[in-house]
């Protein structure tokens, strides 16, 4: 069972990576959702799988009866899902703002902070290093 899920996780990771390498940042965000899911599943599977036995203690007992599912990874995954949602929402808003400000969804064209120039030296470099320039003598 675990092996099958391991393969599924592999597929999720592969598709997520492929999406995250796309030019369109909307695809990147889809990839983010997929890789969050893959990470959650990984934690879950690493704690081994138990079918049909939730980690609950029945009325009257002091400890779970029989073998129950591993509670620890479940607790980790639960918070990870909520935090992953927070990250996703922030990334989505960020992307949306980038689009309304820069007018593009293509990460290649988002060049305000790090303008790429076709000239031999990037313009921001020459500006910053002017200080050490030798005086024209």
């Amino acid at each position, binding site marked *: 069972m675990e092996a099958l899920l391991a393969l599924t996780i592999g597929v999720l990771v592969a598709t997520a990576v492929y999406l995250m390498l796309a030019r369109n940042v909307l695809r990147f965000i889809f990839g983010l959702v*997929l890789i969050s899911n893959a990470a959650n599943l990984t934690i879950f599977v690493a704690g081994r799988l138990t079918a049909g036995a939730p980690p609950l203690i029945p009325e009257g007992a002091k400890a779970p009866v029989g073998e129950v599912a591993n509670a620890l990874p479940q607790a980790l995954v639960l918070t990870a899902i909520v935090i992953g949602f927070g990250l996703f929402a922030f990334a989505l808003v960020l992307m949306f703002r980038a689009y309304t400000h820069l007018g593009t969804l293509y990460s290649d064209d988002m060049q305000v902070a790090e303008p790429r120039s076709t000239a031999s030296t990037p313009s921001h470099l020459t500006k910053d290093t002017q200080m050490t320039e030798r005086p024209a003598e």
Partner: protein
Amino acid sequence: MADPQHTQTSSQAGWIGLVPAVLSLALFAAFASQLPAIAAGDVQRLVWEWVPALGISLSFLLDGLSLTFALLISGIGGMVFLYANTYLAGHPQLTRFMLFLTGFMLAMLGLVLADNLIALFVFWELTTITSYLLIGFGHATENGRRSALQALFVTGAGALALLAGFILLGITAGTFEISALMAQGDTLRAHALYLPILILIIAGTFTKSAQFPFHFWLPNAMAAPTPVSAFLHSATMVKAGVYLMARLYPTLSGTDVWFWTLTIAGAFTALFASVLALRQTDLKQALAYTTLMALGTLTLFLGQSSSYAITGFVTFLVVHSLYKAALFLVVGCIDHATGSRDAETLGGLGRAMPVTAAAAALAALSMAGLPPFLGFIGKELLYAGILALDAKVLIFAAALIASNVLMFAVAGIVALRPFWGRAHGVPPRAPTEAPLFMLIGPVILGALGLMLGLFPAGLQTALVDPAVASLLGQDTKAKTLTLWHGVNLPLILSGATIAAGVMLYLTHRPARAALVWLDDRTPSFDAGWDRFLKGLKALAAWQTRYLQTGVLRNYIAATLATVLVAIAGTMFARNAWPQMPDISDASWPLIAICLFTCAGAVMTALTSSRIAAMAALGVVGIGVALVFIVFSAPDVAITQLLVETLVVVLVAVALLRLPLLDQNGRDTRPRDAALAIGLGATVTAVILAVLEAPLDRRLTSFFETASWPEAFGRNIVNVILVDFRALDTFGEIAVVVIAALSAYALLRATSPAPNTPPRDTPTRQIATPSRAERSNS
């Protein structure tokens, strides 16, 4: 190259410079009061714990060597402060200047007094920084900025090597205390790390003391105002390197490497610099090169081990500080009075500036090494010291004598010709005698050269004997300082030096012309420095262009590729590949769920329809939720389903205003696909390998057994979240709040740009509305 504009009148001299002058004279008095104790062989230590865990303390040591330096620093400092207060009177930044100079003086005193390598290093760097600020005091000029940066880079790079050397030395010896290191000389010299330590420390001292081939920054540092040159670049800071070599003399000296490195570098620097000194026409530049010569000579003598050489070293150190500071101050007076420092044109100033001329004469005669000045005694000792060497290294004696001949001529050029020679031009201003406060320094310093020459016994017992003892140990007596040793080889050489010097002085104009011709035809280190910086910049630009493409995809690809290589490489190296997975135990519903999930993921990756991508994402989310349900995680499954719903809601809202997805065309498809498949396969392999290892359930067992009896909860997952690991949960909800507030701020703080771009043709259209526009809309 004129100093920053300053007014001529001394009446405007404020009181601000008198504060540090009084401070340094008080320090001088305090140090002087220690003279009898130190002369008696006493050594004083003062210790505060600083970083005891690292064996670093703020400890100070007062012995003959550090007292000599401390007296020179505080004494010359006091005169320089007095001088600068008048020299820069009316300068708008006089207060800043005084602050820098005071900071430098205190750092320098700390340097020569420190008894801990790390404390010494901190003071060392403080002198570097204050020196940078002082050289760059005229930062309005391009040349001032360049010179300051050059000095900072060269000495700063050396200091890094020095720090490495100090740390190595401290670790090797087991202590950072210099006084403790002195006793370990023999073991350290035999240690395997001796050579690296020596090389690193010498790299620091040679850059600081401007030894060839790091000499070029010192003449450029003359861009600083003259008082700075007089203080830092003749008497004190450049001698920090020499001081450190002297300080570590008992610890590191005596080996062949020490001897040859210091002797060759010192002799070459001395000769090379004194030849170049003759070439200069700017009086200050000429003095800068003679300073290089002096530093070379001092280094040369530190390479030796005879007591003649060390006595010569200490004496010459004092002599040079006295006359060089005086001469710099004299040149400042000339510059101040006439507005010119050109040796070619100046002449006949002695009539208008008699006191300055007298001070200059006193200093120059000491520099030329004529009796009965202290300079003569120093030179005699140097000659005696160099003659104590083996006959086969007489070449060093020749270099020393040649540089002394040149020094003699330069002394005449700098200090005699401007006053008594014939003028070859008219200076910008008519000369007048310098104001009183600018004369105090040069006159006292010049007169000291004569006084100490006539009565050397006081200097001998007060400074030279204790300082020599600091280097050679208490048992070795210093040689006697006296004007008359009888007719011996040094005296004959002195006579020859004087004769040759006079001849050179008389013929210095054609000689200088020849040197200019030669200098212009040899590559200069200064230009090499510029080429070096240019190359460094080109290298930085190249690697930035190559590595920092500004394309986000490349950064992500590089990051992911690194992850892939790190994980897969480790598994490969450890041969930790898992067995082929056995999936025969999987039930049909689970297989269906997994197939659904995979199909949804692949669909998301390949579709170019936004709705299809959203739906496919939903499929993946629900598939994952089903996995949680099947494997007994109800809490997680509910959370997953709810979050999945919210994701769809948010994406749907956002898509209303976003353009359609383009065709999934990309130029890097093979690379992306390879990376994706590689990472996916690696993650699967890692999980399979993890699953092969036994599971440690101790933590889970604890939660299971403690959940009800201790935390009164039947839902173990919830108990973990809100009780056992409540602090973690608190951190996590804090992250959720921060994410929400950030997203909220991002949405609210800036409203959309007025020109909403076209939907389907996203072009490079950067619309960043101004702050005013944003706040209006």
